[in-house]
């Protein structure tokens, strides 16, 4: 049965949310533009205010309604809906059902709307116009911008089609038959409901994907706040005052967005196989840029009250960070990155709409800034080189240059598109070595930024004398000594890395000394120093873990084994970073002894992995059991019996874990389980490796499987080859030398004793491999006058040997042998030193941002409440008439 009601309710809520957002925009606009007559007419003004707030609150409720409807559809497995069918499935564990909500683009727009609605309500409450005692707050102009953005966002999920082609938004409540009217099944059965969904891309089934998107979108949403305040300030001719309410939110936004970005990086580190947390991928870059600009904007706001250059910068950067968020959304949602990113988002046909929004807000901002530029007062005297304004401003500018470099390269595909639109082909592709390209610039930028954090803090807290920077000599000397020692000890030779290291150490030393001084006075003021220390720690973590990662899995054997010149001539050593490990054959590697122990699988509810062949997956079962299997052994771990032989167990059948045993030189043994995932959603039968990481205080050991034997050829055996031989004969089987030693009698087969009239023999065959030998004992049985043969299989050799016949006359034995692909993995391992500094630095950064945000918010409320107490005469006109 098709449940149409919930979808219709959801869609109704979407339309209502769009309409209410528009209503709130218009009502707030009316208040903002109020002329004298309306301001005199208190009653009417109050009505408009009721309408504006009411509309926004109702808007918030309708957004909750949309969210609720979509969750209802997903949780109840209503696969007649395209969204549920496309992103969820019955096999999906509950926590990931939540994340299937924002798997699709519509869901992520919805997430954005959700956060904006909540933030809007908070902002109304904290910036209320209160006419009873005549104070005027930011509510009306700021919320006009806010509600307008909300209307634009709501239209992205509106899903209204005019005619055949013109569509506004993409609705998450489309039925499958509406989304895919051409599918043949719907012509024969319009009420067809799929039994199961396609499911979530297994790569995204990770706990980080439950919290990373909401965090990131909270970051997206909060960048709107400084933008809205800034526009409101310019509009109301208060080009300075908007910064006070905007600053705490900008700090909060920088914290949340920064954490969101790093969560994404951490997910990539744990899940993807590109070997790190940051790959300078366009999708990563496009959100790094607004973050850097936002951080620069915060710095500009700090000096904007005193310096007119600072104020201009603050205005431009606050506006830019929001516009860059829109640009980032456009880049990732329009499919324009197509050829240049490993992430590819599909185009829902909304890129035009997104482009219009971006350009519209850009136009509003540019026109407004240009019109009000004259309002910004000129500085009375020129900024001194020894003033805090000067150094903080330089810091903001270097941040901007750094982000500009990232933005410029990331925009290559856009340049191509623009060029094509004008009829020529710029034909520029991403630099062949992206990582080197970005690092080349960014290492230097961030070295400069790190130094500036130290100088800036010293001057900010007036530790320097009026006309010199001599106070900085002591921290500079201390840092040079420390970093000199580190450079010598760590054998650092690259000038760029030396510079970054020294600069980061200086940042830590200088900011720490400020921190100690400030804490003695009032710890609440130390947010800046703490944040800077966090950033410097992060830089050190990045420098060591990326710049000095060491490949553990150097393949020294490749050259030796290969005799063909073809394989050796062009291979340079750097490329030989993968080793092959055959099942159960230990191999030495950078001091470790590594052994591949076989394939493992995860049973839901069982703590440790179990061997893959202990479970027989159910194939072709009904959707409820599509991810189940039958246990072929008792599953017992740590003395607890989880499943009996023959039980049906729930699995994650797409994941295989490859057990790799590491034996350290000291004899200590640990095991890693890098994962291989058969990921149907990334190309049919695609194989996606994910690393396993051993975390140690000083470094991480990162291991992943590069390739494995084709899973499709698994379990296929070659046609049998037969051998007629006598005991002590030697023969060749699957390129191995085998010796048929002798024959031995046995009274037991598989633990079952044989009866008095039965007989069984086992042939003892030694198979010689390069370094070890294996003994195979195929059995020949006569039980109840019937002949039975029990073959023996050896996985290490990929060999199955069966004793077919015994000829008592000639004394010859007939064996048949089948061979299969020997099990192996090709793996790569590397050490990432001091990566923990990156994560520790992130925590410190978050603490610093939070302290600063709390401090600035207190300042804001204090000033606001002070203003409120002042009796203000109504005649104090809104500053509209000041021009």
């Amino acid at each position: 049965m098709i449940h149409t009601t919930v979808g219709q309710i959801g869609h109704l809520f979407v339309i209502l949310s769009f309409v209410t957002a528009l209503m709130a925009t218009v009502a707030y606009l009316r208040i903002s533009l109020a002329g004298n007559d309306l301001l005199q007419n208190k009653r009417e003004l109050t009505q408009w205010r009721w309408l504006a707030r009411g509309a926004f609150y109702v808007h918030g409720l309708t957004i909750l309604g949309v969210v609720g409807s979509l969750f209802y559809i997903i949780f109840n497995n209503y696969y007649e809906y395209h969204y549920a069918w496309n992103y969820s499935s019955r096999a999906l564990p509950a926590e990931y059902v939540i994340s299937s909500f924002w798997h699709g683009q519509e869901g992520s727009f919805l997430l954005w709307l959700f956060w904006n609605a909540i933030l809007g309500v908070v902002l109304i409450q904290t910036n209320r116009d209160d006419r009873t005692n005549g104070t005027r707050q930011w509510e009306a102009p700021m919320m006009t911008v806010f509600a307008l953005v909300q209307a634009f966002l709501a239209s992205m999920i509106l899903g209204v089609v005019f005619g055949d082609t013109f569509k506004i938004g993409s609705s998450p409540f489309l039925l499958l038959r509406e989304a895919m009217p051409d599918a043949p099944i719907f012509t024969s059965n319009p009420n067809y409901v799929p039994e199961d969904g396609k499911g979530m891309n297994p790569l995204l089934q990770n706990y980080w994907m439950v919290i990373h998107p909401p965090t990131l979108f909270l970051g997206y949403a909060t960048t709107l706040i400084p933008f809205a305040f800034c526009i409101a300030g310019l509009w109301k001719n208060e080009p300075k005052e908007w910064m006070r309410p905007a600053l705490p939110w900008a700090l909060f936004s920088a914290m949340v967005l920064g954490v969101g970005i790093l969560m994404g990086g951490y997910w990539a580190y744990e899940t993807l196989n590109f070997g790190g947390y940051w790959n300078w991928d366009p999708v990563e870059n496009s959100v790094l840029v607004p973050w850097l600009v936002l951080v620069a904007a915060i710095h500009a706001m700090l000096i904007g009250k005193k310096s007119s250059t600072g104020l201009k910068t603050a205005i431009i950067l606050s506006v830019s960070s929001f516009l860059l968020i829109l640009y980032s959304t456009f880049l990732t949602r329009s499919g324009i990155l197509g050829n240049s990113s490993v992430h590819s988002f599909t185009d829902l046909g909304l890129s035009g709409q997104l482009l219009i929004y971006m350009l519209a807000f850009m136009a509003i901002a540019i026109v407004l800034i240009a019109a009000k530029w004259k309002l910004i007062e000129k500085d009375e005297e020129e900024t001194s080189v020894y003033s805090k304004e000067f150094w903080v401003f330089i810091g903001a500018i270097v941040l901007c240059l750094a982000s500009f470099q990232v933005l410029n390269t990331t925009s290559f595909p856009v340049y191509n598109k623009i060029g094509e639109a004008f009829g020529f082909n710029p034909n520029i592709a991403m630099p062949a070595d992206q990582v080197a390209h970005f690092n080349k610039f960014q290492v230097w930028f961030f070295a400069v930024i790190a130094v500036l954090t130290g100088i800036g803090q010293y001057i900010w807290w007036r530790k320097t004398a009026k006309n010199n920077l001599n106070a900085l000599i002591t921290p500079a000397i201390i840092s040079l000594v420390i970093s000199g020692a580190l450079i010598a000890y760590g054998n650092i030779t690259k000038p760029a890395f030396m510079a970054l290291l020294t600069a980061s150490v200086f940042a830590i030393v200088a900011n720490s000394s400020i921190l100690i001084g400030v804490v003695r006075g009032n710890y609440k003021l130390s947010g800046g120093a703490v944040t800077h220390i966090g950033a410097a720690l992060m830089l050190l973590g990045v420098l060591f873990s990326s710049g000095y990662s060491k490949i553990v899995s150097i393949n020294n054997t490749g050259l030796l084994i290969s005799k063909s010149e073809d394989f050796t001539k062009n291979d340079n050593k750097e490329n030989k970073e993968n080793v092959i490990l055959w099942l159960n054959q230990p191999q030495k590697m950078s001091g470790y002894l590594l052994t591949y122990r076989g394939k493992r699988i995860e049973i839901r509810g069982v703590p440790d992995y179990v061997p893959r062949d202990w479970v027989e997956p159910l194939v072709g079962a009904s959707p409820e059991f599509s991810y189940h299997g039958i246990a072929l052994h008792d599953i017992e771990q740590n003395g607890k019996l989880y499943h009996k032989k023959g039980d049906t167990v729930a699995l994650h059948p797409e994941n295989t874990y490859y057990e790799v045993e590491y034996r350290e030189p000291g004899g200590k043994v640990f095991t890693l389980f890098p994962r291989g995932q058969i990921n149907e959603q990334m190309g049919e039968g695609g194989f996606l490796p994910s690393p396993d990481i051993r975390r140690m205080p000083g470094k991480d050991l990162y291991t992943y499987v590069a390739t494995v034997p084709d899973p499709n050829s698994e379990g296929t055996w070659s046609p049998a080859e037969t051998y007629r031989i006598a005991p002590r004969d030697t023969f060749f089987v699957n390129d191995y030398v085998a010796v048929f030693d002798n024959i031995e009698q046995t009274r037991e087969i598989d633990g079952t004793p044989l009866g008095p009239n039965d007989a069984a023999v086992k042939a003892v065959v030694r198979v010689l491999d390069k370094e070890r030998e294996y003994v195979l004992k195929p059995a020949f049985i006569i039980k109840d006058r019937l002949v039975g043969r029990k073959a023996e299989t050896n996985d290490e050799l990929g060999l199955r040997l069966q004793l077919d016949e015994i000829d008592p006359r000639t004394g010859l034995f007939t064996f048949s042998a089948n061979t299969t692909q020997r099990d192996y993995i090709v793996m790569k391992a590397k050490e990432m030193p001091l990566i923990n500094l990156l994560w520790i630095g992130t925590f410190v950064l978050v603490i610093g941002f939070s302290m600063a945000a709390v401090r600035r918010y207190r300042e804001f409320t204090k000033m606001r409440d002070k203003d409120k107490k002042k009796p203000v005469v109504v005649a104090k006109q809104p500053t509209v008439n000041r021009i």
Partner: protein
Amino acid sequence: MKKTHIFGIIIIALAIGIIISTAGDASSYVSFTQAAEMAQSGEKDGVHVVGKLTKDAQGQITNMVYQPQIDPNHFEFTLVDNENRTQKVVYNAPKPQDFDRSEQVVVIGTMNGDHFQADKILLKCPSKYQENKLETKEYEAKKATI
């Protein structure tokens, strides 16, 4: 001239420096013939070549060599670019596991004698992940189990 003006000029100069330097790093999309010419003239920077894999009548990829037991870091295959030039490509890393399913391949690297040395491979796979590609086959299989 005021200090702010000097400062503005410095910033603009730096920004232009970034653009020029970036333009120098930028790669381009070329054919194998152009890539060979560029390599001849001593150009060492990597280029992008877009091509298709050679496949036989059964849709199996032909001229592909990967023998991990001999060298896990040597993978070679043949690519036909948009000008229909057939070219051997060598990639000194394990064969990407989903290589067999890909149709279009972008190789990034340089021409090196008789072959193109790829540093990076981008695969474009026909993906189930793409929206609105309902596989009717899958549907039929599911209908059978009801």
